[in-house]
């Protein structure tokens, strides 16, 4: 999305106002986690077994897929785009890794190969967005439809094969007394956050997302960070697909569908602006965990599905209202 309007320069930059000595963005990220913890503790009223470490472990395992995908989606949203192809990329990663498992030689060749293929498709998205001026919404949606259809045709409707051992170990195994997934999530979050918020590459992403013209004038070859963002998004989705396959020991052709809207929701609830240029991965992680927790607690409510869905929607709107940055600022300054 190009911003060629004269007042684009006036577009609000990332909120770096400091309240006391803490950035308000950090406060809103922290608020998400606080909200999640409140939700977990409150769920004890729903069932005594909830509100426990066991539940947290389950939540992190189930949220791990969303966290990985939300990173990629967050990068694309950061540069002002949107990636609707991640559902199909998740499916592609899962399908390729199971179908080629065994006939590709070593697993350690298979996994990078699948990731590279996904990244190339993501790069194709970027080509369409940057040079053919196709709106990211349409480009990624069309690519998603094409990839899903190709996967359907390639497997003739029945994906076959077992999950790669590496992912089986990741999703089912444990290191010491902690589950392997938990450790993986911690490491991934750390690395991803560093990449986005503490490297020059990350800074370029923010610059391009905030104001592409200004970034170009400042000497950044804007196409490079954008292409890397889309490629990483597709690769993250492919990786999440392989994680899913390791979790369930099999692939299905629509397995990515239920992660599309939640990936966007996690990023937006986490404080990133859909227009780009603002937000941090820590917020997206908080959003992903909040959504997964919400799903878990809602599922434990013993009422009709319709009302459960209404409550889920109401809590999301409520969380959005509470997490507004200007509300937090108002509260702090009203002290």
């Amino acid at each position, binding site marked *: 999305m190009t911003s060629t309007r004269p007042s684009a320069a006036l577009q609000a930059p990332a909120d770096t106002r400091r309240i006391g000595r803490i950035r308000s963005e950090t406060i809103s990220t922290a608020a998400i986690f606080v909200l999640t913890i409140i939700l977990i503790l409150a769920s004890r009223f729903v069932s005594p077994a909830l509100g426990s470490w066991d539940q947290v472990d389950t939540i992190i395992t189930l949220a791990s897929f969303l966290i990985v995908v939300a990173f990629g989606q967050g990068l694309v949203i950061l540069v002002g785009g949107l990636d609707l192809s991640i559902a199909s990329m998740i499916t592609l990663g899962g399908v390729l890794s199971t179908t080629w498992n065994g006939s590709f030689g070593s697993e350690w060749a298979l996994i990078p190969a699948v990731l590279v293929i996904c990244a190339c498709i993501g790069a194709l998205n970027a080509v369409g967005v940057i040079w053919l001026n196709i709106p990211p919404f349409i480009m990624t949606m069309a690519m998603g439809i094409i990839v899903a259809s190709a996967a359907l045709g390639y497997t003739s409707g029945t994906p076959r094969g077992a999950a790669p051992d590496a992912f089986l170990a990741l999703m089912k195994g444990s290191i010491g007394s902690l589950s392997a997934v938990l450790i993986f999530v911690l490491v991934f979050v750390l690395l991803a956050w560093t990449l986005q918020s503490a490297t020059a590459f990350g800074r370029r992403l923010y610059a391009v997302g905030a104001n592409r013209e200004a970034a170009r004038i400042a000497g950044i070859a804007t196409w490079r960070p954008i292409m890397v963002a889309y490629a990483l998004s597709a690769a993250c989705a492919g990786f999440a697909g392989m994680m899913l396959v390791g979790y369930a020991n099999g692939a299905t052709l629509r397995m990515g569908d239920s992660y599309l809207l939640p990936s966007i929701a996690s990023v937006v*609830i986490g404080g990133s602006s859909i227009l780009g240029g603002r937000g941090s991965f820590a917020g997206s992680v908080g959003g992903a965990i909040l959504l997964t927790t919400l799903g878990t607690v809602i599922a434990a409510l013993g009422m009709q599905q*319709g009302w459960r869905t209404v409550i889920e929607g109401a809590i999301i709107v409520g969380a959005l209202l509470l997490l507004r940055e200007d509300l937090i600022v108002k509260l702090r300054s009203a002290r």
Partner: protein
Amino acid sequence: MSANLNAARVTAPGSNLAVVMRRVLTDGAGVVAILYVVLFALYALWDRSALTASGVTNLSNNAAPLALAAAGESLVVISKGFDLSVSGVVSLSNVLMATYPLEGPGGALVSLMICLAVGGAIGAINGVLVAILRLQSIAATLGTMIMCQGLALVIMDAPGGTVADWVSYTLTDVIFGVIPISGLIVLAVIALWLVFRRTDTCIALFAVGADETAASLSGISVVRARVTAFVGAGLLYGLAGFMLSAQTATGNPTAGTPFLMLTFAAVALGGVSLTGGRGSLVGAVIGAATLMLLQKVLFSGGVSSFYTGIFQGAVMVLAIVFGSLILRLASTGARA
């Protein structure tokens, strides 16, 4: 309409025809209309029944709900927003129509009022959340969509119910033997749009979508423009649910789910810019019609079932590329 249009009026010499052609082409709606004509030609080539009255009626009945939903969505997108609640409102109105069927033309009118009221109410809620409480539209409407979806499930937990006969028989019928009534309803909405287009509120919509800060600085009430957009969109979603009920004649609590992605695809295909400030409701309507026609073209073209997706995606991309190509050609011509 785009700035190019004004440039064309001022600088281009040549006949009125050239001006009109240029205007048609620089407006996103014109491009998608050409695509529609091309697809229809292919369809008629491969399927003789395309040109019969019943063929046209089927096309119209099939496309009308999506066309109305896309029309509503275009209002929000023009004012720079995303409205995900389309699927929730459609499901809700469909379920209400099937659970409380009201007979006869009077009953149909009351049902219509109910659908519009529901859509308008949801639109108003969205407007408050986005314009006044300053939530991001994509997130706020996601929340309202989920709530509407839940309400639909509460009212009807499995497909069933019957829509009133008058609605499902008359509204899918033809008058004068050839003109489908569903088509007339869509045309009526387009006519309303063309009238609305000239009002200050509509210009405010475009201004807010193009540049909110500049619009507010020039005295436009951003809140009022956004709320108008959401409420208008909600009304149209309610109408879309009404027409969907006429076509399927029954209720389904998840009736609106397919509409989510299709609506945005239709809007984007129709030349409405997803960053706001540009485009036309007419384009969104034609975009919706094109998407529905594409299914039939692929069927009659004998495309293998596994690979229809590839063709659909390719057509979407090609249409946009083609459209921006034409845009560039036309605006280069305008400066000549």
